[in-house]
């Protein structure tokens, strides 16, 4: 060890010098739990333009749909429809289900990949990740904060879209009972419970893509790679899902059960098996990717 200690006598015990007694190991554990609190992380994410844009688009989207439907001055489609789009304007409930359906697949996937996959690589690209880690925020704590805040934002987005559509659609088209495509109606109590479960399911169904984006983001430090890789996995899975030769193996593809929630809104007596399977698969994929993400990050050399 190179010896610089010969000069230790030069030390100037000046005013304001840190007291050695304050640095017991036990005392140092205390501030750990507060490091990068959820409130702090929420503040970091909410001030970002990206987050504001996402929520802005989600708010504007139903308005665009209403405008698009308003342009249709052909004969009323509201009566005998077997497709969601035909009866979308029959009332708030139908409109909100239509919006959830058309945005549930691609839009919410992108939102999920962005909200959950981007926060860690974004910090890396601003070079602020190393300062957070030396603040210090423990690595697992950092990921947990980012993950939970990302998921909360995703949940807010998933709930906001149909609820806002319901409100807007109810205002524009009236709050009539939900019409099942192909015939039948759901009374409002049933509809509310069904749409609540459906929203929950849509949220869970987007978890695997969030998990993939999270893992890739933690691994590559590139926000674009995180979102792109997650979408790529879903697109490839979707293509594989359309190949009949794969038979039952397709059930294991992420996204295979992505539309099972429609069961709740297309029949009076839903079959829960598909949703049960989809739920478990989604949670399984999400857990795998998140665990891998933590594992990668715990051992990673931070070079950004």
């Amino acid at each position, binding site marked *: 060890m*190179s010896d*610089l200690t*010969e*000069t*230790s006598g*030069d*030390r100037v015990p000046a005013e*304001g*010098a840190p007291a*050695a007694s304050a*640095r017991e*190991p036990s005392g140092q*554990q205390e*501030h750990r739990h*507060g*490091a990068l609190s959820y*409130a*702090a992380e929420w503040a*970091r994410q909410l*001030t970002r333009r990206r987050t504001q844009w996402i929520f802005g688009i989600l708010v504007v989207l139903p308005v*665009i*749909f209403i405008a*698009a439907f308003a*342009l*249709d*001055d052909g004969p009323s489609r509201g009566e*005998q429809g*077997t497709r*969601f*789009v035909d009866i979308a304007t029959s009332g708030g409930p139908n409109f909100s289900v*239509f919006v959830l359906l058309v945005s549930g697949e691609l839009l919410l996937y992108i939102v999920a990949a962005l909200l959950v996959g981007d926060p860690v690589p974004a910090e890396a690209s*601003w*070079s*602020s*990740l*190393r300062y957070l880690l*030396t*603040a*210090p*925020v*423990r690595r697992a704590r950092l990921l947990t904060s980012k993950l939970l805040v990302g998921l909360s934002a995703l949940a807010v987005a998933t709930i906001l879209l149909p609820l806002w559509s319901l409100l807007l659609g109810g205002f524009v088209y009236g709050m009539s009972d939900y019409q*099942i495509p192909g015939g039948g109606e759901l009374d409002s109590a049933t509809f509310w419970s069904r749409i609540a479960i459906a929203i929950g399911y849509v949220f869970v169904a987007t978890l695997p893509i969030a998990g993939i984006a999270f893992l890739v983001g933690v691994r590559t430090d590139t926000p674009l790679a995180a979102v792109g890789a997650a979408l790529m996995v879903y697109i490839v899975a*979707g293509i594989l899902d*359309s190949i*009949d030769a794969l038979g039952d193996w397709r059930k294991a593809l992420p996204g295979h059960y*992505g539309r099972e929630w429609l069961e709740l809104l*297309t029949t*009076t007596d839903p*079959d829960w098996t*598909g949703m*049960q*399977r989809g739920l*478990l*698969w989604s949670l*399984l994929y999400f*857990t795998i990717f998140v665990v891998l993400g933590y594992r990668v990050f*715990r051992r990673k*050399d*931070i*070079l950004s």
Partner: protein
Amino acid sequence: MSRARHPRRALWAAAISALALLLSYAPLASAEPSPEDFAPVTSTPADETTVPDIEPVTERIPTVAEPDGTPVELDTDLYLPHNSDGPHPALILAHGFGGSKESLRTQAQEYAGSGYVVLAYTARGFGDSGGRIHLMDPGLEVADVSTLVDHLAERDDVVLDTAGDPRVGIAGGSYGGAAALMGSALDERIDATVALITWNDLAQSLFTQSATAAAAGPTPAALEPTDIPGVFKQLWGSRFFGTALAGGPVEGGDPLCGRFEAELCEGLTQAAETGEPTPELLERLRANSPAEVIGDRMPPTLLIQGMNDSLFGLDQSDANARLIAETGAPLAIRWTDGGHDGVSTTAADDEDASRAWMDTYLDPELPVEEAATRPLPVDAFTYALPLARRQATAPLERLDAYPGLRGADPSERVTLDFRRTNPELRLVTPPGGQPASMTSLPGLGGLSGLGSLPTYPLAALPGSSGAFDTVVTEERLVAVGSPRLRLSVTSSGEEQVLFASLWQVQGSTASQPRTLVSPVRLTGAPGEEQEVTVVLPPATYVMEEGSRWRVLLTTTDNAFAGPRDVRVDLVDLAAASLELPVAEGEPVVAAGADGPDTESLLVGGVLLALLLAVAAAAGYRRYQSSRAPWREDLADVPLVVDHLVKTYGDGHRAVDDVSWRAERGQVVGLLGPNGAGKTTTMRMMLGLISPDSGAVYVLGHRITPGAAVLGQVGALVEGPGFLPHLTGRQNLEAYWRATGRPSEEAGFAEVLDVAALGGALDRPVRTYSHGMKQRLGIAQAMLGKPDVLFLDEPTNGLDPPQIAAMRPILQAYAATGRTVVVSSHLLSEVEMTCSHVVVMHAGRVITAGRVDDLVASEDTTVIDVPEAPSKEALEALRRTPGVREVEVIDEGDVAKVTIVAHRPRAEVVRAALDADLDVLAVGSRRHLEEVFLGVIAGAQGADASAPGAGQSMIERLRQVRAR
């Protein structure tokens, strides 16, 4: 507002809806059922891997000659079990209309594999068999079955009950099903029968009459039609001809009839043209039916009939069942959702039932009489309920007895009232019978195959159709059999034909649960009102609570040859309600469907195991980290770097056994050329990179990723990092919030003074210059007054006044008993700022110590001369006793000669003067640059291969300065 006036708007609307459609439906394409699901086949799509590889022996067996005396041979295939020891029971397999023995191959191999001698044959008039098609003439096609039984009786590997009577069963579907039933009725030697989707009365099946004069019978699907001949099933008739003609004309035969027997052909052709059968034709068809031949004896019989069958409906198997029940033979009935229009979704179950039936009643271990008394191996009555949305197989229910047979309770009937508001219908038959309603597509799987397309408009043509709706059902009803209703009809014509179909109405949409239609033909004087009971298609119907049921009446149907004369019928309800046979069966638990969903169990299990493993690993790590190393002896040393080694993934050893320490109050400069390992060391000091071996201790705590003691460390590494959208002030606040420490500890005011950003503090960081970010970065590192401050190239981007301002700040900071570590390439800066220096090169520490000690020493004399001295002068100096080392650095206008000697400085200066040097100035202190270059040169001299080893000192100095 018209579309034409606003083409652009319409275009936008179209584009947006197209996008929405694309988004909502593109992924659904894969969910559409594939077309092969609806192929009009009835045999099981067997799993090929389980089919035994048994090759048949082809034999041509002579049989009854044609009526004109032409000899006939049957083309047969004999499949023998692999283990041919011991006599086996035998099985005759018969094919459907248009098929051949080849279509029975898989089924035959499976039966042979389980120990049957299987004889598959091609029926008379088909394939390579001789003769013509007589549509199951008892004296010809049915007699052929007896010929085959005779043939089997002669084989010594077949069990014989008595001489000439083999233990034999017969199975077949459709045309072959009739062969099985009629053969069993006429040949007493047959011991077990399985008949699928076949007829009871061929006349009724082709000329269908769904009007009855009889009250509802005891059985669920009974249809006792009136004597008026029914309506010709034109599409099915045409399909038969197509099939028969495909076989090619026989020599001397009518080229239009193919292999059909001429008389039958003529009768059918005429009926197709006129829509009216001749009495002779009806008589012949009726004779070629089980209805006419089943007498007082039948073997145990399993009847399987389908509900997706517009040719032979459930009423046919109901009639067969009633006849067989009278003989006292064991009898079981299955209603599947397959038939001539589509495959049964429970085909595997149906196949299992057939197998069980044969295994029970052909058991060679028992005498035949005893076998026939065994209990039924399958439920007496099993029926499929409608396929629920997205179900792969139809749910099955069972009853212990077929209602109304053998003393079982008759079918229970309930009534469902029609709405009072139903108006009297005025139905017009358009001239020529066109356009025709479309309620089914015979043989093509029915309209249900078209998915969710609205089919009601295709069936309910305006003017020629009308409907009666029931009231909304208040509870779920399961109808099993034929619903009935009573109509009164007043017509302008002498002959009235109506088609009735049953629809389910939910909301405003009508759907047809079974694509079947009941034709009714009445005769009566014009204007005369007559009442008639219509038997709707027998099937199972699930009437959901809250749905309405609709009976659609049309005057035309594309599948039938109805009258073409223009006509008006007034139709009204003659009874106020629809009569439904209901049943409450017990659900049959399908094989493999018992218990919870296996896929969910599997995935759930894996998920649970994964979560447990994760929890265990997390617990273990927590335990490990609670034993984090703590060096009490180093508790008061701000920084100890202890034998650090780091090799990167590419094999480059960036840091090689680096050790040094810093004490309180020191400002330590970390020096070294590019790639010396300074930054890697600094990152390890912050826990950003894990060392391969060695450790860094801050105040006795080992640095690990995110170690708590890093709270006492402030750092600026490789440039600052800020959230670009926040202002400088917000960034510092956001950073401090992330530490989770109270804001009063931060000392914002002091560090903001350090940053000296003024008004720029409240602008977003992305608008900052490099130097502003750098100052903010230093300020951030000093937040909370850390005990140890790491600054990597802090003067980067700062202008000289700012650099000068930074110097006292760092010194003052260290003066409070804290420690500052600075890495910099500005050697003069380090010299002026730092108290101590650590010089690294190629991953190693090559020198360390106080700056003063390094730059000044007793034995060193620095002499400034106007120009570089000559070689001779330097040689002379070197030869002077006591002089150890002479170095020259030429700086252009002045050259510095550094002399290291044992002798007093005055003597060294004298020696220089003696060597003819023009001494301008004499000093004792070298610059850090010189020390730095000296030690680097020394280290490189030790490593001759190092680049730059041969370069002049000046060149190297230039490189250092340029950095």
